[in-house]
């Protein structure tokens, strides 16, 4: 394989020995167990990143469930492929987008490798391949069982178990290349002053595009009488997962002009995108990364300095509100630290903000449902508000990680009396920076959907009341120090998956009750009053039972996430 690829890669200007070296390093970083010692006797732990293993397990399970559901519904093999490949594209693209900040825009790496004789194409390709490896782990895990189960889909055959994993790989390559090319184009278009913020917000836009493609577009087509997963039609040419389903159909012997056109689109797209990523986008990558690392940080520091001077020139209402909300000095310090990272640190913004866009999808799913007045449509729309506390939880989980994690030792040096003061500052920062703006957006969405401000407000009140209790959950069993862990690939996604699954069950039940009340199964005011009364009680109970009153105990290691030998 290596000797086969060597010459074409060298023709593209890639230094293959360097590529192999770098890729090996990146894969070790991603999949190796974190710890001080690697050897147990003479055996080295090769794969040990528990987060990646956990994610893989979750996707294997999801694939099994979706595969069984689809097969038992006696679905046609084309529809079966479209559903599975849509999900594959969705999860792999989102993973690549979420991980790209630590791979493509890793500004701490430039001091390690920036002065070494590695050309742009080699470096960019090594990073792209390491991202692809991660997306393949997810994509292939998800398609493990469906590749076998698909044999029993209508019009399928034994060949399915061979061709489907191949199309899953192609979809992963497509999604990864698309994300890389999109970033590459942005890198070229954005001036150095705007690059940082454009990259940050582009992740949100890309996340929304993939969500729109996966969740909204099939519903939109369904609402207009066009089904994405039944007969093969012309509009499937606009939907990338259908291209690769077309490839499967061709191999299974169901070739027709439209099927062949779909397959050709898929093969052309993946080749063109991969070529563009290596050949075009990689040019000038190191220079762009250097600009991003050195120039924009100092630019931003100057801007912040000016802004800081402006704020302190007069005692603003914001300061007064802060003093009212944050009475304890430790709480205020943590709040300021976390909000500063929220607004200034690119890595935090890139990891947190795209995950916040998830909640918008639920009301849109409901709004684009075939029956807008149906119970399920109402359920999905109301689920949007229920997702807002989950947004806060996601932000809190994401804020556990930071590139400057060693600095978190400050919490262990300073005489912090109670963990609760740190937790409270973090919770309030997450609530103000994420939860409140999200409720604002949901309020507008509800107003648009239900044409009434009063209805919108009444629908949101129970969720506003329950949010403090839900935000307490991460602090219930463990101490949470903000920005204190080194980021490991897949770790944030794995933690969010667990939270999302648990919260989805709890919140889904509550939304079910709210939907029933809203649709007059029982009076809505009972639901509102109950939630407003129960929420503070549950919050106080949770606070009493949590670790809030305990002091910060000494860490088992000198840093929060690394055992370190002191010299």
């Amino acid at each position, binding site marked *: 394989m290596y000797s086969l690829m060597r010459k074409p890669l060298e023709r593209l200007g890639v230094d293959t*020995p*360097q590529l192999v*070296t*770098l890729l*090996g*390093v990146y894969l*070790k*970083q991603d999949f*190796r167990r*974190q*710890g*001080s*010692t*690697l*050897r147990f006797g003479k055996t080295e732990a090769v794969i040990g990143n528990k987060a990646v293993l956990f994610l893989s397990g979750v996707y294997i399970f999801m694939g099994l469930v979706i595969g069984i559901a689809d097969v038992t519904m006696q679905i046609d093999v084309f529809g079966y492929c479209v559903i599975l490949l849509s999900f594959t594209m969705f999860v792999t693209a989102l993973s690549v987008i979420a991980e790209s900040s630590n791979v493509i825009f890793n500004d*701490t*790496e*430039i*001091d*390690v*490798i*920036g*002065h*070494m*004789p*590695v*050309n742009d194409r080699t470096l960019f390709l090594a990073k792209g391949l390491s991202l692809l490896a991660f997306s393949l782990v997810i994509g292939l895990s998800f398609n493990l069982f469906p590749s076998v189960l698909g044999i029993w889909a209508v019009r399928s055959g034994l060949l399915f178990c061979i061709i489907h994993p191949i199309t899953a790989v192609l979809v992963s390559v497509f999604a990864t290349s698309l994300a890389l090319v999109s970033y590459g184009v942005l890198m070229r278009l954005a001036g150095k*002053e705007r690059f940082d913020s454009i990259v940050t917000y582009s992740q949100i836009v890309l996340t929304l595009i993939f969500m729109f493609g996966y969740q909204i577009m099939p519903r939109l087509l369904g609402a207009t009488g066009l089904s994405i997963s039944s007969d093969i039609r012309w509009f499937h040419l606009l939907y990338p997962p259908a291209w690769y389903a077309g490839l499967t159909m061709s191999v299974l012997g169901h070739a027709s002009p439209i099927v062949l056109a779909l397959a050709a689109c898929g093969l052309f797209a993946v080749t063109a995108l991969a070529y563009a990523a290596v050949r075009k986008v990689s040019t000038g990558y190191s*220079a762009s990364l*250097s*600009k991003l690392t*050195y*120039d924009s940080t*100092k*630019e931003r520091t*100057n801007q912040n300095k000016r802004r800081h001077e402006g704020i302190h020139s007069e005692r603003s209402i914001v300061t007064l509100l802060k003093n009212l909300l944050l009475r304890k000095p430790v709480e205020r310090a943590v709040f300021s630290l976390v909000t500063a990272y929220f607004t200034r640190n690119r890595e935090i913004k890139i990891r947190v903000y795209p995950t916040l866009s998830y909640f918008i999808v639920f009301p849109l799913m409901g709004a684009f449902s075939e029956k807008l007045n149906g119970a399920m449509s109402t359920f999905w729309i109301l689920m949007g508000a229920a997702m807002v506390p989950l947004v806060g939880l996601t932000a809190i989980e994401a804020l556990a990680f930071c590139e400057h994690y060693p600095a978190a030792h400050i919490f262990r040096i300073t005489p912090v009396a109670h963990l609760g003061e740190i937790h409270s500052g973090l919770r309030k920062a997450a609530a103000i920076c994420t939860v409140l703006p999200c409720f604002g957006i949901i309020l507008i969405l509800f107003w648009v959907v239900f044409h009434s401000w009063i209805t919108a407000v009444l629908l949101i009140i129970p969720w506003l009341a329950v949010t403090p209790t839900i935000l307490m959950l991460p602090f219930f069993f463990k101490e949470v120090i903000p920005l204190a862990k*080194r980021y490991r690939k897949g770790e944030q996604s794995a933690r969010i998956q667990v939270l999302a699954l648990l919260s989805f069950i709890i919140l889904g039940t509550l939304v079910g009750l709210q939907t029933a009340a809203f649709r007059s199964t029982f009076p809505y005011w009972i639901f509102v009053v109950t939630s407003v009364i129960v929420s503070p009680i549950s919050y106080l109970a949770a606070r009493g039972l949590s670790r809030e009153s305990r002091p910060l105990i000494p860490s088992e290691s000198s840093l929060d996430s*690394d*055992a*370190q*030998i*002191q*010299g």
Partner: protein
Amino acid sequence: MIKLENLTKDYGTHRAVGGVNLEVPSGQLIGYLGPNGAGKSTTVKMLTGMMAPTSGRAEVCGFDTMRENIEVKRIIGYVPESGAVYETLTGREYLEMVGRLYGLKEKLIQERVEKFGDFFELGEDTLGGMQLSAYSKGMKQKIVISAALIHNPRVIFFDEPLNGLDASTQLMFKTLIKNLAAEGKTIFYCSHVLDVVERTCERIVIIDHGVVVADGTLVELQALSGEGSLEQIFNKLTSHLNVEERAEEFSRSFGF
């Protein structure tokens, strides 16, 4: 060997390096001094091809740092101030990676890794058995220095290389760089530890607010400023006057 022509770097409206002109001949050990934020590291990043200058140009061994970026990188070694490494690798794996990126043969890499391990007294348990995240700062710095020298570069840039090193390793390191210079390597030594620069560097350049304020041997700088030690010369040239008085006043105001 190293040539800077009106080298300038602006961050927005802030000028970090303002038109530096400098020529460093082959085999010279030059100390590049300056207070915090003077533009030392920015100069080095431009010379190593990691950062583009706003204007002006720089050459290393006749190669333009921007147009012949890769050629420059092949012949230089660099110890960054940050001491950044890939922390998930072991020390040995990291040095092997660096050797391969410089295109060294496997046998040579192994030989050199062993030599650096012996020189810095890093046993196999540490070098091959522990991830860099578990190393102390000093141990990590030894790996960073080894990585900068593993390919036997012609020009070496040190940016605060003594960070975290213990006294005996510092002494070994100072002797090492003197010998490297004697063998014809050009060494660009960035620091604000004046004592080390005073003892090891044959030429001293002082930069303040991005501009060169002094350039010469210690004797020439003494003659220029009328001061005795490098510390006094530095304080005079970089306008940090009355430092002792200010420190006393500050401690009084705090009630220490």
